[in-house]
């Protein structure tokens, strides 16, 4: 942590890399990646995680197909944030459960919906 603070501030790269456990690599925009709570915390320079220095995140329990869909969702979310009448994202049924687990882990919530989710579910 202290080491990090002493280092001169480098401009953060615009792109980050996400790698699945079966070695599929996805380069996506940092701004989109930050929409996932978990990835944001991993990449946050203040956190001092290894990922924040290298800009590369390894996900040991997420497969390539699922991570691809996650990246698609992040871009989709980035595009439609704050808008109404958002079209639904199509998800293949065979990956839905695995994707739900990944989404839960990655904290892919729409920030504006946090309170609303509770309402929906109750």
């Amino acid at each position: 942590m202290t080491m990090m603070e002493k280092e001169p501030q480098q401009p953060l790269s615009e792109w980050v890399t996400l790698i699945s456990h079966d070695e599929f690599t996805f380069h996506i925009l940092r701004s989109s990646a930050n929409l996932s709570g978990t990835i944001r915390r991993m990449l946050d320079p203040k956190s001092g995680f290894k990922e924040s220095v290298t800009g590369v995140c390894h996900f040991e329990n997420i497969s390539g197909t699922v991570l691809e869909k996650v990246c698609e969702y992040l871009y989709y979310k980035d595009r439609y944030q704050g808008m109404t009448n958002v079209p639904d994202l199509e998800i293949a049924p065979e990956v839905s459960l695995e994707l739900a687990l990944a989404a839960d882990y990655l904290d892919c919530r729409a920030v504006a919906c946090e309170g609303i989710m509770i309402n929906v579910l109750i």
Partner: protein
Amino acid sequence: MSSRRQPNRIRGPHSALTDFLAANNISARQIRDDYENRVRAAQTENNADGNDNEEVEGGEDGEEAESAAQAAAEAAIARNRSRRQQQDAVLKARADKKKKAEKKATKSKKRKSKRGDSEDEDDSDFDITQDMYQKKKALPGQFENCELCEKRFTVTPYSKTGPDGGLVCGACGKDLDKESKGDKSAKKISGPVKRARKVESERMDGIVRYGPKPLVQTCIETMLKFSDSIESFDNTPEHLVTQICRLFTKHRVLNEDTFPLFLRSDMDRLQVYDCGKLKSKDFERIFAEIPKITHLALDNAYQFKDSSMDYMIEKAKNLTDIRIYGANLITSPQWSKFFKARGKKLKTVKLKWLDDSFADEQVADLVAHCPNLERLKLEFCWKLGSDAIDSIAGLRKLKHLSIRIMKPVENENLISMINAIGPRLETLSLRSFKDLDDSVLEAIHNSCTKLKKLRVADNDVATDSGWAALFTDWANIPLEFVDISEVRDIDNQNPEGPEEPIGVAGAGFAALMEHSGEKLRHINVSSCRHIPVETLLEVFALGATFPKLENVDLSFVQHIDDVALAGLFKAAPETLKKVALFGCFGVTTDVIVPHGVVVIGPPRIGVEEDGTMEIWGDTAMDDVPSAVQVAVEAQLGAEDDMDLD
């Protein structure tokens, strides 16, 4: 009558068989004629074949007979040929008719649109000639053979027409219906109409959605469509399983087949929000598969029977929280048995909709055997009365109490209960105690100091001065949740209400906000119609802040107007989510609703003059305070400026 009109119709004696056949629309004569026709046709065929053979044999006979035989044979062949040709033509015509009938069935819609086509005209001619030879359609009450399954059935006015134009029986008719319905359901309504309806429906639930849905929710919704093919939820975190269970219930796909997915031995809690489709053996399965269960919630558990209860008593030894709604098949002794056996560990008991089985004695058993109970909810248990209230006073560790007793209860009983358990209570919900008066409020004032949630709803006795006395100089910590809805006088002879207002009015509301304003998250004062506009303006004046306020229900608070509402928006700018204003005619569309707030219920008045404003939260305003300021100014006199906007 008809027999008298036809005097010549003389009949001979009938056999029972003839009567039976006539009654079943079977004509013996027709059968006989058909049979004879067939026999005759077969004979002529045989004769013709015989002639052919004769011809061959005749060649070997003498030449004298040859010419005569040949002539006869030729004539026979010609006859035979012409008959065969006739038969072929008839067969061909039948086949054509069948084909066209099929075509007609499949393309009937297309035909309707292309009625002018020449081909169709030909067809119609053909159809007419065919129709002439078709059997007359059976009338209702008669018998007919089904076109599809050939079974005999009684024709009714509702009998369906089959693909070939004949009638079909009930069973086949249903199948046809299903097929046609299947076609309809394939064309689901989608697009903007459905979406708009959903958005509107969600608004009523207090949901405003900006941006896309959370990914988890999208995934679960996909799973819902394929709920049959899910194998298991192993390795899925508990909270995710609970979410899935909720959405499964909401979309009514939680049934006997999908229920086992949620039974996981590694979990210790189970919440099923609608058990309507589950059977008693499913409930027993819960305790077989999750013996270490601690938290159990079953809503609409109609099939939870005594046998399931026995099984629960036997297996679920760690149960601490139990919520069972609507389990009417459990008998009273079984409840007592349960409390005796498993009462010591119980911390939460929530029971609702027990009509005939849960009586005062069971509450006494509950109190006697559940010394550690912290949370108790008893609603719509029709047999409970004052004795139950007396028993509850014995629960020394109780923190949360919600009761709704259907029988009349004396105030003395309530007061003694509140005096006994009040000091430890954090939640007190007294619903539908119609005769609850100021003396009970005074008891609450004197005993309770830790209340966070207070509900005294559906009452027509407690007065404004009683409420004001409760909230003035109350030693209790500030409340977070207040529900004083439906506290009002109902008298058709005196619609304005008595002089001394019933329910929260000016003094009571001001005292409430003064006491709890800083912590309040939820206020429900619907139907408290005597709150004057002066008090509302004073409470929601410029400068007042309610930093936690999220949910406000001011329905039927008649005197609220635009200025007071704008003041409310300003007083809770960050947190406010939902305001209900049903029947508030003082609110017009001049109020600008801040971004993220849902206002439901106000009558849309003045929309024609000023169509740009929406009271439904559509107008996204980034700068909330200034927007409110505009509204306040507009109401205070600058109405011309407002119209220009």
